[in-house]
């Protein structure tokens, strides 16, 4: 259509095809456009909608309702109280100099989110760039991409636990460093520490960054890179002026994956942090263990709100619809 249009607007307006087209949303509804009845589309979307309703919307609604219920040491009663939320934010707005538990927990979680996001972005972008621009043949690209997914052939928990013999006090790393005489005593910060948590999270979630960035990158017409080179752009200029702007949607999608997963994570932080590091997910898990469902639900709703706000913020940076 664009090609057959005339060059200038004034000429295009004189073209018969253009004027013959009905204006948008103007009396076109009555004209059947296909033999398929109108409800078939809804029928096709129904199974997914049902799954969403049953396994996502309903539990979420239930959580929201329960977050206003009352509970004691031995009972949970349907009610409408806001005490759960005031308990979540207990001491947060009293103006004291120390941070309340919830804010401190969120801050600790956000710290991991920031570190992990930064590292997965850097590693993910580099890996995707290598796969896309330095690997020349498609079979090789597919093969190397499969290599990236190998860690996902084992369970999440096993992958985490595997770090323990490596990083433990008498683990491979410490033994080797001591054997080489580089250190006298085992490094304590290797395991059950912030370092271990960040390491495991980056290891677990880098692929979530690689995939969408790689996907965006593969859509870049290679002629654009050549055109940039032709215009005198250095590799760095091409990267910052062409590649990064064009893969922004991929970066945002990857970032959403990583940020939401890490914000809600309690397993990795629990295992790799030796159950010593606070996280929002961990708080909720503990409350559930004590059957304090209403306050756990309130915490979950607050966490959901934080995550949704983050996603909203990231989506404002880029038009994600272009990518879908």
């Amino acid at each position, binding site marked *: 259509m664009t090609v057959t249009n005339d060059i200038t607007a004034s000429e295009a307006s004189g073209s018969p095809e253009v004027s013959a087209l009905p204006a948008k949303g103007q009396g076109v509804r009555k004209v059947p456009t296909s033999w398929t009845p109108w409800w078939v589309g809804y029928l096709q979307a129904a199974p997914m909608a049902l799954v969403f309703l049953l396994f996502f919307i309903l539990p979420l609604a239930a959580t929201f309702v329960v977050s206003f219920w009352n509970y004691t040491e031995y009972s949970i009663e349907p009610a409408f109280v806001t005490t759960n939320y005031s308990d979540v934010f207990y001491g947060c707005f009293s103006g004291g100099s120390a941070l309340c538990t919830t804010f401190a927990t969120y801050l600790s979680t956000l710290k991991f989110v920031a570190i992990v996001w930064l590292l997965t972005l850097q590693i993910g972008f580099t890996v995707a760039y290598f796969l896309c621009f330095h690997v020349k043949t498609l079979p090789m690209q597919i093969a190397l991409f499969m290599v990236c997914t190998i860690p996902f052939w084992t369970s999440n928990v096993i992958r985490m636990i595997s770090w323990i013999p490596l990083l433990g006090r008498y683990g491979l790393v410490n033994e080797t460093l001591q054997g080489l005489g580089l250190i006298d005593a085992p490094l304590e910060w290797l395991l059950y520490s912030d370092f271990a948590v960040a390491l495991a999270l980056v290891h677990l979630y880098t692929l979530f960054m690689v995939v969408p960035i790689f996907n965006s990158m593969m859509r870049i017409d290679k002629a654009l890179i050549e055109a940039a080179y032709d215009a*005198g752009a250095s590799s760095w200029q091409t990267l910052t002026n062409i590649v990064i702007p064009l893969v922004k949607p991929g970066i945002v999608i990857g970032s959403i994956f990583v940020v939401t997963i890490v914000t809600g994570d309690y397993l990795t932080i629990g295992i790799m942090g030796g159950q010593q590091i606070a996280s929002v997910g961990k708080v909720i898990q503990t409350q559930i263990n004590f059957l304090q469902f209403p306050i756990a639900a309130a915490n979950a709703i607050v966490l959901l709100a934080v995550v949704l706000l983050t996603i909203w913020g990231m989506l404002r940076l880029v038009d994600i619809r272009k990518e879908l």
Partner: protein
Amino acid sequence: MPSNAADLELADVTKAYGETVAVDHVSLKVPAGTYCCLLGPSGCGKTSTLRMVAGHEFISDGDVLIGNTVVNDLPPAKRGTAMMFQNYALFPHLSVQENVAFSLKMAGIGKAERLERADEMLGMVDMDAYAKRLPARLSGGQQQRVALARALVTNPTVLLLDEPLSALDPFLRIRMRAELKRYQREFGISFVHVTHSQEEAMALADMVVVMNDGRIEQVGSPREVYNHPKTRFVAQFIGGHNIVHEGASAYAVRADRIRLFAAQADGTTASPATVSDVEYQGMTIHVALKRQDGTALLATLPEHEFDRSPVSVGDTVQVGWNADDRHELAA
């Protein structure tokens, strides 16, 4: 119009991809301010040749000179060349204006100046009204003009065009063809234009370079090439020629120089042939013939001439041509 035209010279240039030789010892001199078309079928090495001149392909052997400089190892921007890509390769995330200003930005020219120069260039290609649009919201012809403006904004000495009209529909192609020629005249620099369409090459070129199999078959003005094809390949590729074998050698006769006589006419240079097809083409009528020795011939006759003594399929006619219209072919 600013112009820093310079001669372009290829000296014994070769491009090999492993065992395959894409361009085989090509030598060519394009004087400054020439519209040069590299013409040939796909895989003949014309695009590889262009890309070597552009600096997008390493030169396996030989030299490319622009002016007096050997540019083999220079990046495109330092060569003074600019390339217009086949599908224009406009940056989809940048506005028309930013696309045109891109090379200036890369060269570190300040924002105000580069946008002003971009606007000026867009004015020259009548696209100033679209400066703020994204390329996706332009038609094919408009995109081409933007691509042209983007290539010309750096004041190149040679503009390289890789099948620039192939993405357009036939009507627009003819219009944009005329525009390309006009811009080449206005800027006074050399355009090197790769195409597989002999019609396009004829219409545009001051200098046609017919290529086949990595080699140059013939260089000349469109008229020279059309009237005096040197080789069988050129005669066939350029179209409108009959190839007649005579012993070991062969010669070409233009289809519009073939004369038909009534069967009973007495022509010493003519020989009998059977009409195998008649096609009405409007201005001309194509008559396909088969001589008794098996040679297939095509005669294009003006309508009025055909009407004087019409023939139909199955008729036997005398077919002949003037001795002047024979062009001996090399191979």
